[in-house]
């Protein structure tokens, strides 16, 4: 298609969709109205299971199967990206990387913040059922925190303190643990992904049944998965070169 024709088809399509979408959006219930059929069902259900963070209760209890699918999408994306970024037959990985000098202030701040960031990450994962956060968010914080090693230190420090195969295993086990917890619900309580543990006291760390455990599994998978993913991109940028 010529550029002109493509633009014409694109323009007509977008205008048609735009008209339809605007007409449809005008019929959406007004913002701030009182009619919330799902809220009225979901919030009491979450509170009944001692989960103050209703979003987490939705994701890991009421619609836990969706979350199982979503964390699997992440797993497939990480494995897929690793497959597509693997060095080709005409590429090789260098072992030595030329490093730029880093400001000592950056190094100091990086190493000070490294343990803080990891702690924050763990906290966000562990309190997913109580406060905003959870496995997905905390996992990303953990993985990013680890890369302060690269920002503050050097690529070789990161590589030495980041045994990739173990992260690969942790990623697989984290992802698998979610499904295994689901099957445990089947065995223990007669239903897949049934919240089979005691709900505990509202606001306690150990409450809301399986929600914190599922958060932990997701946190483990997301942190390891993002580390594996970033490792592929860093390798492509820093060490993989075409063989001459």
């Amino acid at each position: 298609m010529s550029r002109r024709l493509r633009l014409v088809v694109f323009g007509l399509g977008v205008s048609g969709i735009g008209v339809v979408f605007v007409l449809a959006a005008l019929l959406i219930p007004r913002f701030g109205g009182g009619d919330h059929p799902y809220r009225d069902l979901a919030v009491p259900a979450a509170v009944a299971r001692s989960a103050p963070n209703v979003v987490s209760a939705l994701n890991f209890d009421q619609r836990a199967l969706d979350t199982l699918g979503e964390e699997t999408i992440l797993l497939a994306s990480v494995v897929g990206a690793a497959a597509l970024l693997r060095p080709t037959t005409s590429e090789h990985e260098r072992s030595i990387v030329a490093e730029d000098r880093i400001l000592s202030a950056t190094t100091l701040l990086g190493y000070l913040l490294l343990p803080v960031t990891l702690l924050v990450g763990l906290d966000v994962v562990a309190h997913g059922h109580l406060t905003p956060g959870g496995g997905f968010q905390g996992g990303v914080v953990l993985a990013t925190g680890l890369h302060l090693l690269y920002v503050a230190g050097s690529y070789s420090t990161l590589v030495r303190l980041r045994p990739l195969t173990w992260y690969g295993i942790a990623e697989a086990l984290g992802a698998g643990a979610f499904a295994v917890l689901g099957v445990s619900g089947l065995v223990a309580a007669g239903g897949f992904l049934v919240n089979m543990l005691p709900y505990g006291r509202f606001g306690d760390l150990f409450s809301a049944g399986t929600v914190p455990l599922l958060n932990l599994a997701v946190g483990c998978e997301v942190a390891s998965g993002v580390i594996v993913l970033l490792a592929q991109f860093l390798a492509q940028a820093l060490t993989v070169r075409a063989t001459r």
Partner: protein
Amino acid sequence: MDPSWLPPTVIAIPLIGACLVLALAQHTPRLVVDVAALVTALFTVAGGAVLLVVVGAGRVVTRVGGWTPQIGIVLVADPIGTALALLAAILTACALLYTWRYFDSAEAHVHVLLLLFLAGMVGFALTADLFDLFVFFELMGAAAYALTGHKIEEPQAVHGGFAFGVVNSLGAYFSLTGIALLYARTGRLGLAPLGAALTGRGADVLVLAAMVLVLTGLLVKAAIVPFHFWLADAHAVAPSPVCALFSGVMAPLGLYGVVRVYVTVFGAAVPAVVAHRTLVGLGVVTAGLGAVMCLAQRHLKRMLAYSTIAHLGLFLVGMATLSGQGMAGSMVYLLGHAGVKGALFLLVGLLLARHGNVDEVGLHGRGRADGVARWLFVLAALALAGLPPFGTGLGKAISEEAAERWWLVGIFVLVSAATGGAALRAGLRVHFGLGKPPTDADPDTTSGEDEAQEGRFPARIPMTMVVPVVVLLVGAVAIGVVPAVADRLAEGGRLFVDQAGYLEAVTHGAAATQTPAPARWWTLSGVALGVLSTALAVTLALLAVHGRFGWLGRLLDTPLRTLHRAHSGHVGDYVAWLLGGVAVLSGLLILPALP
């Protein structure tokens, strides 16, 4: 015993298996990975088979996490959804067996991705929740894009995966927008609760726009014109066993989704005649375009890909009758097609492994020494045309009967003959060296000569690559000769189009009413039309091999060239066509349905 534990288990098996394979792959040799992946797939096959038996002629409803349909997610296994889940598992097992010696690199990525892909397909086929359907749709996509681009040494492979990813993701965003509109209106996400909420209120622009948007993503996955462009590009570069999965079950699942969502959610709100007319129209155009493009290819995998597009169009025509019989016919056809097309892709994979090439012209006569493979190729090509007693022939016959109108029957015959003829032409040229090697070099057709070789087996063909082909062809015959298959699918078709029954089963777990659907089996006219298609295919192939088209060929030259140019491989073009398609679909579905 309450069978509601089975559906989630069938989803969980490939998922847990994939994680195990990924964990094992870090430290164990290739053989362990191969065995673990294949065993996982076989367990899924077993789980799917048990579920199919348990489902019988009814539905198994699972409330995941024990929540009511209004709050949580419900799975509903019915005969058609379960049959598709089982098909996905069988094809994955065949693909894993075939890849045993196929890839040189010892990477376990392919195994993990295939198993995750399987989990996505099984989940998609069993869920009864619109958002959950979308999640599994995306899971299928994430695994499929990476599998498509797997041969990263080739820029075309990465480009094919990219085009697939962009077009499918765009379709998915439309679906998600539609789901959001429906949620804004009803506060529901389950198929049955949504259907109940929309019943009796009639359809306004919001509901109709939501329907168009939700169906768009599914129609993209089903490669219906004008959303079909990604399919040929992806099939051209994806590893052949992956193509067998894409053609056999992934794209057909898109059609399954279209009809499932329409019937359960919009069945009572949107007049059936509007949906019927639009879907039949889309199916006919898709079937015609696919058949023409199929005949015009010399790149064998592209040819098979366009044949898939043509068949998807035919399945849509059958399903669009929105009758039990049409649904059953399409399902029988679809299952038979999966076996036949899967076998053809695996046979082309053999050519690629032995000769490093999938070009019909370049391979002329070079496949003479391929032993049993050359006879299997010809047999599969005839089966593609609808040769009785293959399942393709039976499915075509039932669909033709359900389509009723004579011109639709004509389209079934012509399209199946064209696709079978194209495959037969390639088989006769490559494996038997018939006719003169063609010399025409149309600059707009893609030759298959620069395709990356998959595997290297110059001396003899390993059994692990022949057995899956035979299994698939035997399966395609079994669908046409074992009456239980067609009987069960006839029941399944009746349940599939019964919205009220579906809603009742989800909300109250009521058993399906036991009025057996009329059995569908070979009829005299069905056999005759199957034989007619096959004879037409043979005539077409022989004419093409000996180049006897004369003035007709010259007359068709210019339109064919234009069609080829439209399939440019430019992602921007595909996106433009997609957006234009959504606008046209809106016009077709919204205007006539407004009160």
